[in-house]
């Protein structure tokens, strides 16, 4: 068990190294000259070559990669050209907003997806089953940024149910001190209930739309796990014992698929972090996705690659976590 977990961690380390190699290589093939970006095109040849040496660009590629690894290990992701701050600082500042959005979204996704999947499995072939499957197909086919725009059009402009883009109304901006960076949490900690409700209101539409994205996946997986369980003999035994159908389904069968379900939810959490790139752009949500796209549009490569590295690492981390959870919680996987 311990040995296998160690093996898993080793393979994740290799994957992380690969991630670093890819971001490093992308940084090297960019047609932007990093030296010119710093000194400007009026610098003389002397300044240019001195800085080039300082940056280590005259070294062979593998030495450059080692330098890059050392820098990343020390938390140095370079300087952002756009904000002229260290990239790591920027990323840490914007990441909580993405985390907040994705977390609420995955809660919504699980809260809707699991019951939908159970319903589809227990009523296999029924209208509900087909409807859930069709809804899943629709969810896989609709561009999320478009859904966000249409959501704003309908619920903000036409019905006025939700506030517009952004994390909070302008009047409330900067009222609470950013302790965790998660605005709803910060507002509660500061006792500012007005800000909390406003922030929650702002969170509603983007998180529901992002959450719907994962409902389809969670429901499909729940359905197929559930169908597997309902065929088992212990289910028949439970029914013969005279347990109510609700207890058989929700307690016995669902209890047995809890572990794989947790891994599915962890995986969809990782995908939501990615999906938030487009959602954040639509809702002017000041998170990592918006940071990466803004940096991209101003050719700020350090920031783009730093952001990519962070998202990639979180993604790999969540994958590892779901794998470990699975092995720890499910005796059959030991």
């Amino acid at each position, binding site marked *: 068990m311990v040995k296998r977990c160690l093996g898993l961690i080793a*393979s994740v380390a*290799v*994957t992380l190294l*690969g*991630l670093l190699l*890819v*971001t490093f290589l*992308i*940084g090297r*093939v*960019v*047609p932007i000259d990093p030296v010119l970006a710093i000194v400007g095109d009026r610098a003389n040849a002397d300044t240019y070559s001195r800085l080039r040496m300082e940056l280590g660009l005259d070294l062979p590629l593998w030495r450059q990669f080692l330098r890059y690894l050392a820098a990343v290990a020390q938390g140095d992701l370079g300087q952002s050209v756009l904000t002229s701050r260290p990239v790591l600082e920027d990323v840490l500042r914007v990441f909580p907003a993405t985390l907040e959005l994705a977390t609420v979204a995955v809660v919504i996704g699980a809260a809707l997806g699991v019951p939908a999947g159970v319903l589809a499995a227990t009523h296999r072939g029924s209208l509900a089953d087909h409807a859930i499957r*069709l809804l899943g*197909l*629709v969810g*896989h*086919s*609709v*561009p*999320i*940024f*478009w*859904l966000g*725009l*249409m959501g*704003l*059009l309908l619920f*903000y*402009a036409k019905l006025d149910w939700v506030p517009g883009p952004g994390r909070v109304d302008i009047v409330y901006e900067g009222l609470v001190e950013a302790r965790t960076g998660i605005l709803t949490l910060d507002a509660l900690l500061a006792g500012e209930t007005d800000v909390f409700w406003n922030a929650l209101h702002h969170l509603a539409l983007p998180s529901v739309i992002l959450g719907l994205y994962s409902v389809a996946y969670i429901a499909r997986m729940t359905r*197929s796990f559930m169908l597997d369980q309902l065929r088992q003999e212990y289910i028949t035994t439970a029914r013969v014992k005279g347990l109510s159908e609700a207890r058989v389904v929700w307690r016995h069968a669902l209890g047995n698929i809890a572990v794989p379900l947790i891994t599915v939810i962890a995986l969809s959490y*990782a*995908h939501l*972090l*990615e*999906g938030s*790139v*487009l959602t954040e*752009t*639509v809702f002017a949500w000041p998170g990592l996705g918006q940071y*990466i*796209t803004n940096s*991209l*549009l101003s*050719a700020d*490569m350090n920031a*783009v*690659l730093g*952001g*990519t590295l962070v*998202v*990639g690492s979180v*993604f*790999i981390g969540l*994958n590892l976590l779901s794998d470990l959870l699975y092995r720890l919680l499910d005796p059959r996987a030991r």
Partner: protein
Amino acid sequence: MRDKAAVTMSDASPPWRAWLTTDTPQSRLQARLGRAWTGWRTFRRNRLAMAGLLIVLALVVVAALAPLLAPHHPYEQDLANRLLAPGPGHWLGTDSFGRDILSRLLYGARLTLMIVALVAVTAPVVGLLIGTVAGYLGGWTDAALMRVTDIFLAFPKLILALAFVAALGPGIENAVIAIAITSWPPYARIARAETLTVRHADFISAARLQGASSLRIILGHIMPLCVASLVVRVTLDMAGVILTAAGLGFLGLGAQPPLPEWGAMIAAGRQNVLEQWWVAAMPGFAIFIVSLGFNLLGDGLRDVLDPKGD
């Protein structure tokens, strides 16, 4: 009712149908056509899959006949008629340059089809090659190739595509390259799994004993067996490819204006979405319908070609 129809059909079945459904085909061609025919019959019963097929065929027809179907030129500006609501003359309205949205959508089908086709002929081929080689040769080759595959799989696709586009520069060709680079790993996985199941089969040993090289065995005997499951996967993935391409276009990193790419059209309609909703809404519908078509088609194909899958 259906049984009765089947009986009358088989009574009056033309000789070609009997030739197709015979249990004792006389040639390889006949056997293959027969298999395709039974597959088609299964497929045809699935109404949703047929709808998907129709949508995809419609996309191809629209793309091919765009100049004939479009009422206006996709780039023709008419500033006097900016942001017209859908109505006669401009069925889907006009955008902020007075260009006819319907015509732009019809021409945009060409771009969508081009992106889909380019990704579909590159990524699966690369994945197939890597997967079959890894699976057949095994050992260190397998370990190394699968490690690389895992690394690419561990990336969030859209973020990786963004980083590649950032490196290569915005544009539709680079978007296609970025999408292709990020989408080959699942194909490699599938191809490897299929290869492992046939690797020790007798017909492979027979080929090897006859002196066939590894390359010949992989290309001639293993790859053809992996194609069916790859086709299913490719069809299912095309919706994702369309959505990613549209997302890149929406962020301004894919097709550049004035190209009528659907994602970029949504981005252009974004400023006035609250007043002139149709400018952003119509291209979104187009993306939605086409990716739904690919999803439905892929689902149906999976039932026909790969009944093992869920």
